[in-house]
Every structure is written in C-alpha cells, then in structure tokens.
C-alpha cells in the first residue's frame, strides 16, 4: 500500500478489506498518484478525523485532497479523473459511453455488496433468495461484459472494472456460502476476474480470497451469527 507523504497532497482514510476503499486505491494506482494511506480500524471504532471528514455517513473511504474531503467511492474515482486530467482516465470520453459506465458501476454498487452480505449473514429461505439474486447479478454482468477484455471495452480497463474488481476476492466466499461456482454460472466473469487480478493496480490493492473469507468469519463472530 502506498504510504509516502504525498506531493499531490492526497490522503486516503480506508479499511484494508473494504471493496469500496479498494476502488479508490486501484484508481490512484492506475493514475500513479502518490498518497498517504491511513488505516481506520473500524472494528475498534471510528477516529475523530473520519467522523469530521464524513459527518453524514461516518464511513470510509474518504479522500482528503489538500485537507478537503471527498466521500463515496465512485464519486471519489470520478473526482480523481476530473482533478487530475493529465493522468489516465477511468471514465471514457464519449458522453454515451460515460453514461453506460456510470450505469453499470451504479448497478454493481446497488446490488453486489448487499446481496453478498445477505448470502453470508442469513440462513434458510432468505439465504436461498440471496443466492438466487447473486446468480442473477452475475449473469447480468456476464451479459454486459460479453466478449470484451474489460468492461471498459475500447477504452480498456475502466470505471466499471475498477468498481467491480474489488469484489473478485469475495467470489470464493460467495461460492462457499451460496454453493455455486462463478466459473459455471458466469464463465466470462470468472475469466475477467482472473485477468484483472493480474493487473498491477488491482493486484496490489486487493487481499486474497482466504483473507476475505477469514474476515467474514470475524464479522460473523462480532454479530453473533453461527
């Protein structure tokens, strides 16, 4: 993780395994922007700085640029594109392609994390429902990806790739709790996951599926779930 005091005056308040924080780390790495990484130990409580920087939601990630906070992972990624226009952009330049990228990143935002959480938190019928939804989500994303190398298509690795890549280490956990295989349900997504996993910005921002699985175990204990 980058932690040099930054010449671009960027600080990221984050939590190691958060897929939302990882989106920002990926974007910063793609743009080669140095920044100070600050780990917020969310299981221990929230720091004063976090509470002041994001008083509305009190959540990470928070990007501080010259001390000014930017909140919400996808908003931060767009901000980085706009504030650092001389760096490789994650959104394409065509307005229609941008609208599509925003739509699919928003789809990932609305669907994947919540459904995944229900998959490992719940049992019985509600869990079965979460499983069915997760399969539907993966198939929908599979259709959108199609035969493209990246969701960004002609643009290359882009906004939707950065939005969805952090969830790839969670696939193993979803598979275990949902009793399915991504490679069977959505083989193109599985192949894409392997491809993005090798990309430098992604590889250095994500943790292994085992670590994610263990983290879920810690959360379950915390919430008193069997």
């Amino acid at each position, binding site marked *: 993780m980058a932690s040099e005091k930054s010449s671009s005056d960027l600080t990221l308040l984050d939590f190691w395994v958060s897929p939302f924080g990882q989106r920002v780390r990926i974007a910063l790495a793609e743009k080669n922007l140095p920044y100070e990484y600050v780990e917020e130990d969310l299981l221990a409580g929230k720091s004063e700085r976090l509470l002041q920087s994001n008083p*509305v939601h009190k959540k990470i990630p928070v990007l501080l*640029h010259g001390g*000014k906070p*930017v*909140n*919400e992972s996808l*908003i*931060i990624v*767009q*901000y980085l594109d*706009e*504030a650092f226009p001389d760096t490789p952009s994650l959104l394409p330049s065509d*307005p*229609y392609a*941008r*609208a*599509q990228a*925003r*739509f699919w990143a*928003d*789809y990932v935002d609305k669907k994947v994390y919540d459904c995944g959480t229900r998959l490992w938190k719940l049992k019985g019928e509600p869990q079965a429902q979460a499983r069915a939804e997760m399969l539907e989500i993966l198939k*929908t994303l599979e259709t959108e990806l199609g035969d493209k190398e990246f969701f960004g298509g002609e643009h290359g690795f882009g906004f939707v790739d950065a939005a969805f890549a952090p969830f790839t280490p969670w696939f193993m956990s979803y598979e275990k709790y949902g009793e399915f295989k991504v490679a069977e349900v959505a083989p193109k997504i599985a192949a894409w996951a392997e491809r993005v996993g090798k990309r430098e910005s992604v590889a250095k921002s994500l943790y292994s599926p085992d670590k994610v699985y263990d983290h879920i175990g810690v959360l379950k204990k915390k919430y008193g779930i069997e």
Partner: protein
Amino acid sequence: MSEKVKLIGCFGSTAVHRAEVALRLKSVPLELVVEDLTNKSDLLLTHNPIYKTVPVLLHGHRPAVCESLIIVEYVDEAFDGPPILPSDPLDRADARFWARFLDDKCWKAMWVALWTEPGETQAAWAREAKENMTLLERQLPEGKNFFGGDAIGFLDIAVGGIAHLLGVFEEIAGVRLLAEEDHPALCRWAREYLSDETVRQCVPDRDSVLVALAARKELYVSTAKAMTAEK
C-alpha cells in the same frame, strides 16, 4: 444536435422531472412518452430491462440511458447550453454526494414518514426526514437563490421533486414534513425553483397532479412498507 430525443416518463414522477428539466435547460426538442406504470409498455421494458422503470432517455439511434441522475449528467455532457454541473471538481463531487444523499437517505425517510401509520415508527422516520432536510438546507450557498448559485444546477434539479411534489404527497398523506418555521431556507429555495421559467415548463398544474397521485395512495403505502422491511 438534430437527432430525435425521446423521454419515456410518467406523470408526477420526481425522477422523470429531473430528466425533463435537464433537457429543457439545454433547449433540446423532445418527445415525451407517458407510461402507465401499472401497465408497462414493451418500449419501456425493452429499453430498461434491468429496472423496468422511468425515466428512460432515447437519443437518436443510441441504446437507452437509464437512471435519472445518470441521464442528467449525460444531458449535460451531450448537449450544448448552460452547464448543469459546476466546473470545479470538488464542487462537482459535492453536488453528486448530496444528490446521492437525497436519494438514499432523504427521500427514503420522507417516503416512509409520509405513508406509514401514525405511531412511534412514523414519528422516528419523520424526525429523520427533518434532520436530513436540515443537512440538505445547509448546502444552499449563502445569499444565493439556488444550490447551483445564481442559476439552477445539478443539485437543484436533483432536489426539484421536493419543490413541486412533496407538498402534493403531504396533502394526500395528511402529513406535514417541510414547514417554513423549521426549514425557511429550503422553503424559499422551493419557491425560487418553481418560479424559474424552464422549471415551469416541466411542472403540470397542481390540481391535476393531486388527482392523479391521490389515486396511487395504496401503491405508495406498500412501497413504503417494503422500504422499512429492507432496513
């Protein structure tokens, strides 16, 4: 741009309103297709298979643009005319943040407070709704008429539904959420917003909106129930 623009919408929708205002601000000639959401057309279902809802923007031969705030940003970028989003990246991030807050937190609390039976639960949601309105109100720049400053901008468009539809919902529900004594700045903003000449083109007369929306009360009550089940 001389390509045809079609907006699939429905009567009395805060989301559709956003798309329409954005298009009219850019003076884009458009064809409005009015959907009956209880009987969705093939046109709608084909163009928005994921969410099956309005608004949906069809611009020339391009496949659809869906989701109201995404449509507004698209309109800002695809058409000439007065800018909708501010130019400074930090201001843009702020506008996007508060628009999200409005949708994820503010409208949810208001909606549940409107359509839940009176009691402790309803009162708690009403309190949350008012707190959220206070947070939103604080985003109005000092001495300016709009969230966007001197002219209507992204956040004004996003919040627009509060100006022209909240009052109607309040009347149907018999619940008061936005009051002058609690939120004078937001109320003043609403009046300014509604007197804007572009916005006026997008706001049908209140009586016909009231009649149409009153007929949907049962639907509103059930969507509010579903929202509380989610939490």
